[in-house]
């Protein structure tokens, strides 16, 4: 089945002072695929991610979503187009409840503004109850309904990860950018995360993830991009990447996490 | 404007600018070791002048000034121990608010001790009417004291931070606290020292300027703001740049009187602050990249 390309990265380049973090990287992500970006520490994965998400602009190059240009957009604009990301070190509002955190995910689905909110106009109220409904569904799906009203700051890391994922799903993303989703998780939790990501993909979404955990990557990725020193070394199916001589050299040549 | 007038403005600008510079240096010293901006800095200047005034009633000028500086330094140290030290995990807002609170408390204590009267320290040499003629401008000898001592302080600080062990230890604390600790530097001592130093320098400035601009219990807040403006103007964390920035602001304010009503004099410095903050928060002499890394 030929999938259309949904996300295209073309000749992306970024330097910080003397450090060439991302060096002319090009790859495509077909719609409905799970694509992983791997590479040793310092390979430029996070920088690449940040540029796709709009955190900062590349020095040169282009990122397109279908036919829309993402480069140069601010992060919130990227989100409005349906591309949502997670953060390695979780950026949840620790003083808010789980429910409120996940409800934030519904932000782009609504349009009620300040005036509407302050006056509690009908539109605002309808949007609120709709949002709540959706969020409750998601909380159930992820099995975290019991902690709905708990303050996020009091939860374990694993549970916080689930909340972040819930928030992401609440946004009904077309493309998910997952920044090290298995970081800090034990083996069991990593397995759960892996099957979760697959389920999410099966809902018709596209996933681009950065990850160090090779078992997760090899398990679920449809395609893998390998970076080293900012350059793309390999790009293909898990099997082809595993057999790629360059990749093997990088990982067995003493350069590991 | 005649050349005498211009000279007059210049000297007046340098005088005021020196004090701004001293306050700004105090900010920078504390900021460098702790990352805190101590908005009570202006009160140290006020305390210096007030304490010296009271002491000078019972002793001669020099010991009065010396004691005033030491006492104020002790106050600075006390503030650090009692209050600042306990605020380890505070937010930036918390620190700002606490130092504002401290400045209010100091001010009110000063009000209680010295009430609202304006006090003035004796002129170091000469008196209110003595003046020195420099190229046609008549300036008080106190101006020479102010400029001279400020220059000495700046040089002494430069030497201290560059060449003494303690000074270098303080600089080490500012760049990397953990590394400093690992080297055996007692960072808490350095922090305390920085408060003492900043307070003492401020106090000395207060003594210097008291004969000319007089000392009033409420003068601290304006100085705090001006000093902050100068510190930002020069680039936060850069004591030498603070001197240049202080003189610059002093001169700008001084010359502004010639075309603006006096009341708007402060508006100029604040407008400068706002413009700098919006356009180049790293200050005139700071680097854009390092300042964007600073976590405010």
């Amino acid at each position: 089945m030929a999938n259309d390309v949904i996300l295209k990265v073309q000749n992306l380049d970024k330097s910080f002072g003397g450090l060439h973090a991302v060096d002319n990287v090009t790859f495509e992500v077909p719609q409905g695929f799970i694509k992983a970006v791997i590479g040793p520490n310092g390979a430029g994965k996070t920088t690449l991610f940040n540029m796709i998400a709009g955190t900062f602009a590349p020095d040169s190059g282009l990122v397109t979503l279908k036919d829309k240009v993402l480069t140069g957009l601010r992060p919130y604009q990227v989100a409005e187009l349906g591309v949502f990301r997670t953060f390695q070190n979780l950026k949840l509002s620790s003083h808010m409840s789980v429910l409120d955190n996940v409800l934030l995910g519904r932000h782009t689905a609504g349009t009620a503004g300040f005036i509407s909110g302050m006056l509690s106009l009908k539109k605002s109220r309808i949007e609120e109850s709709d949002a709540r409904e959706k969020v409750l569904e998601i909380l159930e799906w992820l099995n975290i309904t019991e902690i709905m009203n708990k303050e996020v700051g009091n939860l374990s890391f694993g549970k916080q990860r689930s909340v972040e994922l819930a928030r992401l799903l609440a946004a009904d993303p077309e493309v998910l950018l997952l920044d090290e989703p298995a970081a800090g998780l034990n083996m069991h939790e990593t397995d759960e995360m892996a099957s979760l990501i697959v389920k999410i993909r099966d809902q018709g979404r596209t996933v681009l993830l950065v990850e160090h955990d090779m078992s997760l990557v090899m398990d679920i990725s449809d395609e893998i991009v390998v970076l080293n020193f900012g350059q793309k070394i390999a790009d293909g199916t898990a099997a082809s990447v595993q057999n790629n001589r360059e990749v093997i050299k990088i990982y067995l040549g003493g350069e590991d996490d | 404007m005649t050349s005498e007038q211009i000279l007059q403005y210049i000297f007046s600008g340098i005088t005021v600018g020196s004090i701004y510079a001293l306050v700004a240096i105090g900010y920078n010293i504390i900021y460098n070791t702790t990352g805190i901006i101590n908005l009570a800095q202006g009160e140290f200047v006020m305390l210096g002048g007030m304490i010296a005034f009271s002491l000078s009633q019972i002793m001669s000028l020099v010991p009065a000034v010396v004691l005033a500086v030491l006492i104020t330094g002790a106050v600075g140290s006390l503030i650090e121990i009692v209050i600042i030290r306990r605020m380890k995990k505070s937010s930036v807002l918390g620190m700002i608010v606490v130092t504002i609170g401290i400045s209010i408390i100091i001010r009110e204590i000063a009000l209680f001790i010295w009430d609202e009267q304006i006090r003035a320290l004796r002129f170091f040499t000469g008196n209110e009417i003595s003046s020195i003629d420099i190229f046609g401008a008549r300036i008080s000898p106190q101006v020479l004291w102010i400029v001279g001592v400020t220059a000495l302080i700046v040089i002494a600080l430069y030497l201290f931070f560059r060449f003494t062990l303690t000074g270098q230890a303080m600089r080490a604390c500012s760049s990397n606290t953990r590394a400093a600790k690992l080297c055996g530097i007692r960072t808490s001592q350095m922090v305390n020292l920085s408060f003492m130093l900043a307070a003492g320098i401020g106090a000395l400035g207060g003594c210097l300027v008291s004969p000319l601009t007089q000392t009033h219990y409420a003068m601290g807040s304006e100085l705090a703001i001006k000093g902050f403006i100068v510190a930002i103007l020069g680039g936060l964390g850069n004591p030498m740049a603070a001197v240049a920035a202080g003189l610059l602001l002093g001169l700008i304010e001084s010359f502004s009187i010639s075309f603006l009503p006096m009341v708007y004099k402060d508006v100029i410095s604040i407008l400068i602050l706002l413009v700098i903050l919006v356009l180049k928060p790293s200050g005139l002499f700071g680097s854009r990249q390092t300042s964007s890394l600073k976590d405010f």
Partner: protein
Amino acid sequence: MKLKRYYPIVLLAGVLVLIQLLTLITGTAYYLTQLTMAAYYVVVAVGLSMVMGYAGQISLGQAGFFAIGGYTTAVLTTIDLTKQINRPFFAFLDNIGLLVHKVTLYGDAIVHLTPWISFILALILAGIIAYAIGVPVLRLKGHYLGMATMGFGIIIYRIVLGTHIFGEADGISNVPAFPILPGITIGGDFSIRVINYYAAWFFVILAMVLLLNLINSRTGRALRSLHSGEDAADAMGVNTAQYKVKVFVIGAVFAAAAGVFITHYNGGIGPSESSVTKSVRYVAIVAVGGMANLWGVLIMGLVLNFLSLRGLFGVYDDAVFGIILVVIMMFFPDGLFQPSSLNRIKRILRGK
């Protein structure tokens, strides 16, 4: 619509009525004056709580917006238009009932603009200025933001202190009362003291309702997420720059509105209302009330302002707020009404 969140408002209303009846019974109706003024200051504080507590921005210049409100209405309602009344523009205003004809205590007939116009203009002006300042300044963070807002407040202070039209050091007096509705006039006359008390607190309740609604809405949630850092909000599609400015404008408009009403209530305004000291007070009240705790801020605002206005702190009024700031930030950074702080107080009282 969650009615639960409005229960405290009913409680508040009940308490207010109770207080008023108490003053009636005990013959201490003069307390109502300070309670009325405290109400207006509370409106400033809860607006600031939105900006500082919920959205996590630092504003040390709120008194500036308060003064913009107060001075705008003071200036516009004290200009005597008797001589201009024949000019077409003013004659038109008169025809549509926007001018007020009065006879002063001294028997002079004067004509001035109706306070409704000056009220609306004051809010618009405050909003515009807040927007103009907010856009560049709210990009800053931490100390820079704090000092920039403080700088704004100082500029306002210097302007009103040094400009003739604002009365310089004496401020503006003889500001007429504000008849907002038939039968309800905001003014200092003793005969309408009770009405003013209820009107002021109604204003507070209105503000609380608006803010409580906001907090629990989509935009409110986005604002609250700003508090712990903007990255997450950005990633979820929140235009953080715009939101920061908007909440700043809301806070400014609240402050300006309060400024308008107090000015009419007191019959005047002075430069001290825009001073840094006042701004610091608002911050102190928000801090001790718990930053993001509207009810805590309301209670502390009421108590502290009332006591201050009654002169309880005497000449050490400023010192008290200074001490409060230091003590709260040192020991109760979450404000007095959070569980962590209450526990701490309990432990201290038990002798630790």
